[in-house]
């Protein structure tokens, strides 16, 4: 006997849906078993919060009088360059964009105190940002310069569009070299001085639906405090990695491309990130509801931190050189205990993703669904699965000789 998304939505409408977080679901299944958990629970909510570099926003700022064609010209948002290779007044700003005068890593490690991610946080938070644009001028778009304050409430569209978010599992980063290194996984102390991980583990969306049975194109999600949708699989989506007996990938695997109205979002869940010596990014909060359609989904959503294994990767040599070797696997239960053992060494752990925020997001989403404010959407297409033949390609470098 299957449950349908339509039936669940009717229950949500009637205020009768039983909604629990993925953390709570693990406990329910342990206590009552899969069959009973399936009978009792309609929806499991997940959550994750962490730096997600392939994030950005696009804007349509409206037409000036006289008109300007920013497309093909240049634009700065609070001094951070946006992408203008679009129509007249459409702009895209990515999280890792930096002001032209930022010294980057000229004096290594650079600080990267302000970039695209920070602009997005401020803009979503309702602050005025400074738009500066230049154009070459045409007969129909004669204006060549524009300098103005810009507020989210005044633009036509402000849309968060992130081409890779919510990684299904991720590396644990360590440093085997004898000097500190500064990575997107944080500062890594020499000689296995620390190990940094970045996944919400038990609460992580794609780890609770490991075969993408319910999360697909068109799935309605919590995105940055507002509502968003899964629009495609994310870039580098890599479903065919090794998996455990319960289908949990043991390497970074699936990813999501997501989209949503920035005007409905909350800057609490969209935070500018500065990774010392690395660059800027955007801390993004995502929560995805998982309909418990059958016993298999009840079993999948009961995944616990002890069931999720992550690869330990050396970021001083293996990662930068693109070598596949790992130093071993470790469970999220061990990672979250604060210390892990690598070889014979006791190594303290740190996290790049926030578990308390992930928990908060899963709870907010649970409350929204239980309160009849958020309904589940039927995906219109499945994401490519492990049988899709999609693999993660390295760059095929071909020297250019003329």
């Amino acid at each position, binding site marked *: 006997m299957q449950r349908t998304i339509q039936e669940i939505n009717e229950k949500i409408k009637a205020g009768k849906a039983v909604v629990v977080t993925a953390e709570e679901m693990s406990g329910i299944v342990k206590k009552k078993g899969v069959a009973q958990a399936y009978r009792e629970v309609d929806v499991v909510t997940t959550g994750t919060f962490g730096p997600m570099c392939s994030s950005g926003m696009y804007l349509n700022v409206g037409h000036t009088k006289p008109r300007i064609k920013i497309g093909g010209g240049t634009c700065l948002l609070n001094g951070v360059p946006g992408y203008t290779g679009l129509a007249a007044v459409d702009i895209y700003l990515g999280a890792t964009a930096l002001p032209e005068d930022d010294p980057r890593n000229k004096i290594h490690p650079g600080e990267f105190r302000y970039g695209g991610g920070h602009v997005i946080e401020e803009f979503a938070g309702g602050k005025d940002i400074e738009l500066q644009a230049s154009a070459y001028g045409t007969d129909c778009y004669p204006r060549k310069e524009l300098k103005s304050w810009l507020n989210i409430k005044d633009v036509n569209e402000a849309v968060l569009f992130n081409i890779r978010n919510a990684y299904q599992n991720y590396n644990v980063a360590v440093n085997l070299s004898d000097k500190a290194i500064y990575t997107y996984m*944080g500062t890594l102390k020499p000689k296995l001085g620390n190990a940094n991980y970045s996944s919400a583990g038990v609460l992580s969306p794609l780890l609770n639906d490991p075969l993408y049975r319910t999360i697909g194109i068109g799935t309605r999600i919590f995105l940055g405090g507002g509502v968003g949708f899964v629009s495609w699989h994310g870039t580098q989506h890599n479903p065919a990695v090794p998996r455990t007996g319960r289908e949990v990938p043991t390497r970074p695997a699936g990813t999501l491309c997501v989209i949503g109205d920035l005007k409905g979002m909350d800057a609490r869940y969209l935070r500018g990130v*500065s990774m*010392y010596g690395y660059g800027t990014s955007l*801390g993004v909060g995502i929560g995805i509801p998982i309909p418990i359609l059958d016993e298999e989904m009840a079993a999948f959503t009961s995944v616990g931190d002890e069931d999720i294994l992550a690869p330990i990767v050396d970021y001083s040599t293996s990662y930068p050189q693109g070598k596949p070797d790992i130093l071993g696997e470790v469970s999220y239960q061990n990672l979250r205990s*604060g210390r892990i053992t690598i070889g014979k060494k006791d190594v303290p752990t*740190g996290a790049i993703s*926030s578990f*308390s*925020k992930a928990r908060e997001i899963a709870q907010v989403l649970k409350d929204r669904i239980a309160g009849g404010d958020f309904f589940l959407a039927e995906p219109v297409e499945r994401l490519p699965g492990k049988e899709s033949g999609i693999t993660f390609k390295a760059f095929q470098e071909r020297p250019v000789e003329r």
Partner: protein
Amino acid sequence: MISRRVVLHFPSKLIDQPIISNTVKRYNLEFNILKASIAPPEGGLLVLELQGGKKDVQEALDYLKALSIKIENLSRDITRKDDRCVHCGACVAICPSEALVLKQTNWEVEFVADKCVACELCVRACPYAAMEVRL
């Protein structure tokens, strides 16, 4: 190698002497002046980071004390902007003195200011610019 941050209060009779120069030479230390003010009637105030061997730093401080310079630890100059902290834990394993702890109950990062040695490693390690130096 250790690093200590101290606030030195100089009596006015000492301000014309090259005390810091003597100290760093004698005990082979590196120093970084974080703040300095000299006002002859009251004496001088110097906030200093001293880096060197553990024994050397201690002996240097004893030497300064013997010259009747009042020494205070600068241990509370790191503060956390709670509205910026997302409790990720990027600082936790970086902190050498366990002043930043990821609590296993609510999974929030607790900042124990008393344990802070003001090394500032967390200031750089924090992706959300939540840790601040205040003098």
